[in-house]
């Protein structure tokens, strides 16, 4: 976890009604996104536009492993079908690096257009915490990020859900 970024909180002013303003504090995440498709990279950028998260893109599994090894990330979104190194191999490699370093496991969310039961079993056994089936909606992506990020993000993403104050 990158402490410098972790502790850098961001205040968003949310307008719920003309007479009411609330300040919601959210924590930015460093998110590594391994995705070879330009279209899907653009989509993630649009989905997360306006969020404070920092997005770092890798175009194949090998690059994702290299970036992971060299940097500090809070979350990885991992496409499964990529050139050079696929998502399953990249995930296994990252888990092996963590084991070698005796470091905590980073959450890895698999992105896949193949979500048959056997595919999901492979994804889980490789070390992914979660999988999202493509095509992915904005709501699905934001919910998954919220589930693996700080709980207070829920207040930013679902302001009308009536969540209790932290």
């Amino acid at each position, binding site marked *: 976890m990158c402490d410098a970024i972790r502790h850098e909180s961001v205040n968003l002013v949310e307008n719920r009604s003309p007479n009411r303003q609330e300040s919601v504090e959210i924590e930015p995440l460093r998110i590594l996104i391994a995705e070879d*498709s*330009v*279209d*899907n990279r653009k989509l993630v950028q649009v989905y997360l536009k306006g969020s404070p998260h920092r997005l770092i893109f890798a175009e194949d599994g090998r690059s994702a492993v290299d970036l992971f090894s060299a940097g500090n990330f809070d979350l990885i979104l991992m496409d499964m*079908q990529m050139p050079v190194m696929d998502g399953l191999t990249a995930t296994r490699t990252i888990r092996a690096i963590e084991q070698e370093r005796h470091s905590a496991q980073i959450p890895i969310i698999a992105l896949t*257009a193949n979500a048959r039961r056997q595919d999901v079993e492979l994804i889980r056994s490789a070390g992914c915490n979660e999988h999202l089936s493509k095509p992915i*909606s*904005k709501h699905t992506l934001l919910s998954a990020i919220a589930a693996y990020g700080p709980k207070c993000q829920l207040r930013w993403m679902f302001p009308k859900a009536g969540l209790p104050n932290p």
Partner: protein
Amino acid sequence: MLSGLEEIVPGYLATRREEIAEMIALLSASRFDRLASLSHDLKGSGASYGFPELTRIGSALEHSAKQMDTTALSLQLTELNNYVGRVQLFANNASNAP
């Protein structure tokens, strides 16, 4: 239109037009692996951009490419070309409307 996608949908459709030409060439060259890969990406992106029909056609194309079914691929590529052409025409008319 889906929120926030307006800026990237035109580019997405333009890329599909170019990609269809590439897919037809791949079919002629019997490069089924690359054809399956492009179809897989189409399946995974279409509905996110607001075009579930592209996801459906992409899924069918991927299946046919894995089966090396040239007859089905030819029909599905024609269907894809027609669909993207219709969407593009609609988009052009909408942008030229007073």
